[in-house]
């Protein structure tokens, strides 16, 4: 363990911790943009610069490892001025059309701009005008909103192990891109959407939730967030809609990734994964992130069906349940309990599986119960 002092507060931390790690653990807020706990530190945005006593230069808190006895200042006039300048510089090349941007309310740049009171930049000059990339069904890229934090590039390489993106060009013209600017479906992209999950601004967005999943209420929410400069959660709280995000477990493979299902008007408007929680740690795959259209599919069964004269007819629950109970009871009585088979489901919950096997054993009286573990 090492001891350091941050803003006058004595802190203890394991050897090898970064200054940012320690600050976070001690509730000290240092602004960041290129930081994501899933990624190795990068030190590019410079917002987390802190002053360390005796150091030759300002150090990026996300990158610099703390040494025992370090005395650190995370805020002072100079640091705040630099941070404001940095935000102004970023804003000077960013379309500040937050109303209508689906990242409004959780855009990290927007939050910093609010914090430093930057509405428009004092630095005016050339602004990028890139074409929108929307050539695939999942990932939409709008590099006019890119702040070059490199998180998409790093997450694709470090977490997904693929490396679909890298920077192209130099200087002001530097921008992330795919090899030879190919559409993403012609790269090894797996459409996991990790880049979407890490992008701090509206530069990379989930197209299904942008294009198709839109509902009027969500638009209103975004506009309101932009207008009142309020984080999304706070806005929802103010509207009495805290429950709009539900934490649950992914229903696909057995990895058990944690999902946050965002729901407005009984519709899924987006799926994200909470950072550093569960086996996925905030990462998902194409199915977990984009594969939930089925829930609100028009093909969903909404009424019991009973086959009458070879054809399905909609029925009331009572009628259907009575029929099932009657038929099963009859079979049990006429043949034996073991002439009934019960299939439970590896998709269903533990509780439901438990009830189904209990039903087979206690109600029907057979051990003929199984599920598709083998398939």
């Amino acid at each position, binding site marked *: 363990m090492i001891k350091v002092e941050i803003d006058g507060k004595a802190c203890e931390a394991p050897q090898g911790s970064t200054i940012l790690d320690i600050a976070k653990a001690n509730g000290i807020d240092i602004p960041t943009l290129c930081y994501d706990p899933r990624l190795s530190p990068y030190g*590019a945005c*410079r917002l987390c610069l802190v002053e360390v006593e005796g150091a030759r*230069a300002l150090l990026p808190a996300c990158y*610099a490892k703390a040494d025992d006895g370090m005395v650190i200042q995370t805020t002072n006039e100079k640091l705040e001025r*630099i941070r404001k300048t940095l935000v102004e*510089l970023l804003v000077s090349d960013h379309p500040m059309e937050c109303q209508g941007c689906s990242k409004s309310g959780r855009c990290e740049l927007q939050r910093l701009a609010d914090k430093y009171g930057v509405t428009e930049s*004092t630095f005016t000059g050339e602004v990028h005008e890139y074409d929108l990339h929307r050539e695939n069904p999942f990932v939409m890229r709008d590099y006019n909103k890119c702040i*070059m934090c490199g998180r998409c590039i790093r997450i694709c390489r470090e977490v997904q192990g693929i490396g679909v993106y890298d*920077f192209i060009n130099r200087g002001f013209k530097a*921008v992330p891109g795919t090899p030879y600017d190919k559409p993403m479906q012609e790269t090894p992209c797996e459409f996991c959407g990790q880049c979407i999950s890490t992008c701090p601004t509206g530069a990379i967005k989930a197209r299904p939730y942008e294009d198709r999943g839109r509902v009027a209420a969500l638009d209103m929410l975004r506009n309101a967030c932009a207008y009142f400069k309020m984080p999304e959660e706070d806005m929802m709280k103010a509207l009495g809609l805290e429950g709009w995000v539900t934490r649950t477990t992914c229903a696909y493979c057995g990895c058990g990734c944690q999902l946050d299902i965002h729901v407005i008007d009984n519709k899924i408007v987006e799926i994200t994964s909470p950072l550093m929680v569960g086996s996925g740690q905030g990462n998902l795959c194409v199915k977990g992130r984009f594969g939930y259209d089925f829930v609100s599919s028009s093909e969903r069964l909404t009424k019991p069906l009973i086959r009458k004269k070879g054809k399905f007819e909609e029925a009331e629950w009572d009628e259907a349940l009575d029929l099932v109970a009657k038929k099963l009871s009859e079979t049990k009585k006429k043949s034996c309990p073991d002439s009934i088979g019960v299939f439970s489901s590896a998709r269903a919950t533990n509780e439901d599986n438990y009830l189904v096997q209990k039903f087979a054993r206690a109600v029907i009286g057979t051990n003929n119960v199984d599920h598709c573990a083998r398939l």
Partner: protein
Amino acid sequence: MSDNGNGHRYKVVLGYGTCGIAAGATAVKDALEEEVKKGSYDVDLDIAGCMGLCFIEPVVEIFDRQGGSVVYGDITAKKVPQLLEEHVGKGQVIEDWVVKKSEDPEACEGDFLANQLRVVLRNCGKINPESIEEYIQIGGYEAAKKALTSMTPEEVIDEVSTSGIRGRGGAGFPTGTKWGFARKSPGEEKYLICNADEGDPGAFMDRSVLEGDPHSVLEGMILAGFAIGARQGYIYCRAEYPLALKRLDIAIEECHQKGFLGEGIFGTDWSFEVKVKKGAGAFVCGEETAMMASIEGQRGMPNPRPPFPATHGLWGKPTNINNVETFAAIPWIIAEGGEKYAEIGTEKSKGTKVFCLAGKVRRTGLAEVPMGYTLRQVIFDVGGGIAEGREFKAVQMGGPSGGCLPAEKLDTQVDYDQITAAGAIIGSGGMIVADNRTCMVDLARYFLSFTQDESCGKCTPCRIGTKRMLEILERICEGKGEPEDIEKLQVLAGDIKDASLCALGGTAPNPVLTTLRYFKDEYEDHIFNHKCAAGSCPALITLRIDPETCTGCAACVKVCPTDAITGEKKEPHVIDAEACIRCKMCLSRCPSESIIAE
């Protein structure tokens, strides 16, 4: 060379570096070979690297058997028959063409070399860089042999520390200390890198050394590898230096044949390999962390330090990086002793430094001088003062990361600390001289546009900050500056310096800051009076022809793209200010300097 050793009467050596080739040395070489092949002359032909006389290339040096020599400059293929006929055939020196004579080193342009002290450039222009034999003949690889067979690595580091040499790449960190860190850094696997990614505009000393004396760099690397415990070295050289790369390849191959590289060097159990890694020409790859990323096959972008390369370098292993010039000096230091090196220079800056004289100086080229020379000595005594007899205005030192110093700083000693105190840096050793026709705002704009273009784009202040600074400068040069622009520049420059990730961004504002410090009036003149006193910024000047001096030669008429110049033959001409686009083509063509920009 006391005796050319070939039994022939003369040895003719052609300066065959990139500068010479660019000036036409290949044609001269062909011509020389053809003349000699005709069999009429009893001479040996050889090539050498750049002698440093870039202002008068191609250069041919002719040695007689006694070792005396005459250097001829500005040689063309056409001049070759006459040169051979007169000098070799008749034994008569063609005085008009002479640059330097061994019997009177100060004469002609000889003071250019006579005022120098050549340690790093000791062999440049003297030996054939494509022949390891010539290098060995003058004592090459003796230092390496001595160190590997009779010294401990610590002793080598001590010797280097004693010499007091500081890293010649720009930062001026004491080399011995740096090696000591790498030596002590735990780990079996260590790497050594030679930074040959020279990229400052106007800097070409590394190229000249690699082209003229690659073996001294390799020998320096062998010594460094031995000292720090690295068995693998890399030379990161930009692909735009094809001749340097070619000569390095030859030199490495020769070393392998001689057993100076590979397993069991000099019969010891030490092994060392050197690989050349070609850089794609990104300026930022000269920054050590970006260079290592590039060697690893990644995009060359810097990473924050700490951790430093000495502990976490190439592929996460302890790594030592030095510049070409530093390595080239090491064999001399080991051979002659660190103390001897330390006798040269000032208290805190030992030894010599190679400067590249460029810009409006009369003699452009390579100047190696002891630390402690004044700027005036370098620019005037070595460089021969300002070209075309104009007035000295400023010297930009250290390339785009450096700063410019005005006339009142000419007596500053060339020494890391003094130059830094004055507001510039020694950097890699570029000296770009400006005369009174140079607009300092425009100069700052030029350097900033360079760094902005070469920014890797990783960190915010460098990527967008320098862009916004550049845009302000561009506005000022166009006469659209605002009164608050100066303060804006100063504040932004300060934040960029403090907040940038690497030295490229951290030093990018320097040219602006020093010009603001020494030439603020020029900025104000641009902003408030919409005037460019140097007559340089197109938007702020008018061009007119002085009727007193105009001879009516019409040279200007031929180059004017908008036909704005009219006049009778042999009569003074006039410029139509409406039609003139102020491209200044006429200005550069006028033989009588009658065109005035105001």
